[in-house]
C-alpha cells in the first residue's frame, strides 16, 4: 500500500451555534485507502466528510487534501473539489438535465473538455455502472438504484482522486441496495481512495481497510474491520454494534 497521505485532518473542530458537532478530529487517509465511517445518527459522521470538500466549514484545525490546505479562498476550494467526488444520500441529480448531460456538465464547464470527449467518457462510465441505455432519459424516469448509480458515474466523470459517499444506500428500497453496493465494491477494487459513511456492515467487511466509529462528534474507535467487529474495545462501540448487527 502506498504511504503518502491524501487527506490529513488535524485537530478539526466545528460548532453549530453552541453545539459542538466535531471535536478534535484527527484523521489521516492514505492513497488507495478505503475507510468506512459509522456511528449513531447525529454523531457528526456526515459533517466530517462534508468538511473535506467544504460543503461545511470547519472552524478550527487544518484539513489538507492532496497537499492543498483548505482555506476560505474560492480558488483553493474549487481546486480541492475538482479532486474529490461526492455521492449523496438523496442522489441530487439535476432533474432538468438528461442522464448524459448530468454526467458531462462538470467535465465540460469545469475541466473545459470538448463536448464529444466528455460524452465518450460519460458513456464509458454509464456502461461501467450498467445503465448505458438510460443515457437520454431524465433522472425522474429512473429508479432510485439507477439514480444513485448515475450519481456515482457523475462524480467519477471528473476523474477524482478521492470519492466521498454520504450514506449512499440509506434512501434506497432494500432490493436496490445491492446494485449500488456492487458498483462501489468494484470501484474499491480498482484502487480508488474512498471514505464512506454507511451502515452496510457487509460492505465494510468486504472492502474497508479501516472502520471508524464516531459518537458525539468524536472518533471513538478505529480499527481493521475484522478486529473492529470481532473485538470492539469501547463500550459505546459495543452498544452500537449490538444494535445494528441484531437487525443486520
Amino acid at each position, binding site marked *: 500500500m502506498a504511504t503518502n497521505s491524501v487527506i490529513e485532518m488535524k485537530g478539526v473542530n466545528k460548532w453549530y451555534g453552541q453545539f459542538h458537532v466535531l471535536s478534535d478530529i484527527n484523521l489521516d487517509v492514505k492513497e488507495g485507502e478505503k475507510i468506512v465511517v459509522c456511528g449513531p445518527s447525529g454523531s457528526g459522521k456526515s459533517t466530517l466528510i462534508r468538511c473535506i470538500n467544504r460543503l461545511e466549514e470547519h472552524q478550527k484545525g487544518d484539513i489538507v487534501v492532496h497537499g492543498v490546505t483548505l482555506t476560505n479562498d474560492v480558488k483553493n476550494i*474549487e481546486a480541492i473539489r475538482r479532486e474529490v*467526488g461526492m455521492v449523496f444520500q438523496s442522489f*441530487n441529480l439535476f432533474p432538468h438535465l438528461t442522464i448524459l448531460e448530468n454526467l458531462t*456538465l462538470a467535465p465540460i*464547464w*469545469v475541466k473545459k473538455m470538448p463536448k464529444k470527449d466528455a460524452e465518450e467518457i460519460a458513456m464509458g462510465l454509464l456502461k461501467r455502472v450498467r445503465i448505458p441505455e438510460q443515457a437520454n432519459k431524465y433522472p*425522474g424516469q429512473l429508479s432510485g438504484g439507477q439514480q444513485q448509480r448515475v450519481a456515482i458515474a457523475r*462524480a467519477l466523470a471528473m476523474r477524482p482522486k478521492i470519492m466521498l459517499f454520504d450514506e449512499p444506500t440509506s434512501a434506497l428500497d432494500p432490493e436496490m441496495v445491492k446494485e449500488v453496493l456492487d458498483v462501489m465494491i468494484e470501484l474499491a477494487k480498482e484502487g480508488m481512495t474512498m471514505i464512506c459513511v454507511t451502515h452496510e456492515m457487509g460492505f465494510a467487511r468486504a472492502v474497508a481497510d479501516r472502520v471508524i466509529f464516531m459518537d458525539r462528534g468524536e472518533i471513538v474507535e478505529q480499527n481493521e474491520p475484522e478486529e473492529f467487529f470481532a473485538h470492539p474495545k469501547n463500550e459505546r462501540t459495543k452498544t452500537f454494534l449490538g444494535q445494528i448487527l441484531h437487525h443486520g
Partner: protein
Amino acid sequence: MSDAMPTGERRQLAPPVDHTGVMGWMRRNLFSSWGNGITTIVLIAAVAWLLSGFLHWAVFTATFTAPNGQACRGHGACWALIHEKYRYIFFGSFPYQQHWRPLLAVLTMLAMLVSSADRRMWNGRLVVIWLVGTFITFLLMFGVLSFSISFFLTIALICGGIGMFARAGVGTAVEVNGWRAMAAIGAVGLVLRILDILPAWSLNIRAFDYVETGLWGGLPVTMILATYGLAFAFPYGILLALGRRSNLPLIKGLCVGFIELIRGVPLISLLIMASVMLPLFLPSGTTIDKFLRALVAVILFAGAYIAEIIRGGLQSLPKGQFEAADAMALSYPQKTILIILPQALRVVIPPLINTFIGFFKDTSLVLIIGIFDFLNTANQALVDPNWAGFPAEVYLFAAFVYFCFCFSMSRYSKYLEVELNKGTRR
C-alpha cells in the same frame, strides 16, 4: 370461476354504454341527480338570457356605419364610433399620413415576440432577432435615430466587460485579449468624451420624418412599455432575487431595501416621481424623455415584483441541488446559470406570467403623467362632441384588445409549462 379461461388471461369488455359518448358524458356530468339537473337547466337559462340581451344590443340592433353619433341614438351599440375612431385609438396623435409606421412597428414587435416564444429559438439567434427588431421598431417610431459616440463607447465597454469575465479561462488568449481591448477602448473613450477631448460625433440614420415621443400613442406605446419594460425588468429581477439571497450583507441589504421600498409604494406615485421629481434633481439643461422616464419607472417596479417571485422559485429548490453543484466544483455563475435558475424559473412560470399580464395592463397607468397609451387614446376618442355618449362601445373594444394579448400570454404560459417539463415530471 366457471369460465374456462387460461390463467393469466383476462376478458376485455367494452365499458357500459351509458358511460361513453355525448349522452353518457351529459348524464354523468350535468344530470347525475335531480339537484344537478335543475342547477344545469337554471344556469343554461341564465346564460342564454344574458347572452341574448347582449347580442340584441351588440349585433342585432347595432349601428355599424353612421356619419356621426346622432345617427346612432335610439339603436343598440354604436360600432360606427369604433369604425370612425379606430385609427386614433390604435395610433394616437401620430401624424395621420404616417400611420403605417406605428402599424409596422406593432407588427415588428409582434413578430419578435412570437418568434421568441418558440423554445427552439432560444439560442444566439434570439439576440439577433431582438437587436434587429428593436432597431426597426424604434426607427419606424422615431423616423430618425441618432447614436452618439458615447452610446457606442458604452456598448463597447459593456460587451467587452461581459466577454472578459464570461470567457476568462474558456476562450483562447487572443479572444480574451480582444474582449479586454474592447472594454478598454470603451472605458478610455468614455473618459475622453466626458472630458470633452473627444468631439460629440454621432451617427444619424434618417429614414423618415422625425416624430417625437410626445406624439406617440395607442397600441405601440402600450406594447413598447410592456415589452421593453418586462424585457429589462426580468433580468433585473433575477439579479435582485440572487442579491437578496447573497451572503454578502451589503448586497443583500441593498436588494432587500430596494425591493421593500418599491413594493411599498403605488406604481402611480413612482410614475409621478419619475415625471415630476426626477427633473428637479437633474442638472438644469439635461432632460430625459418623459417616455423613457415612465419606462424606467415600470422597469424598477416590475423588477421588484419579479424578484420576489423568482426568490420563491429559488427557495423551492432542495438544498441538495446547490450542494451537488458545489461538490462538482462549479463556480457561482456556472452553478446559478446551469443548475439553479433553469429549475427555479420553471417552478415560477405561472406566477411570473401572472405578473407579466398584470403589468401589461398596469402600463395604462402612464396616462397619469400624460402619456397616451392604448387605454388613454380610447378614452380620448370619447372627447369628440360629435360622438359623445358611447363609452361602453369604446371600453368594450379596448377590453377586447387587452384580452387578446393577455389571453395569449396565459395560453403561452400553459404551453411553456408543458414544454419545459417534458420528461422531467416525477
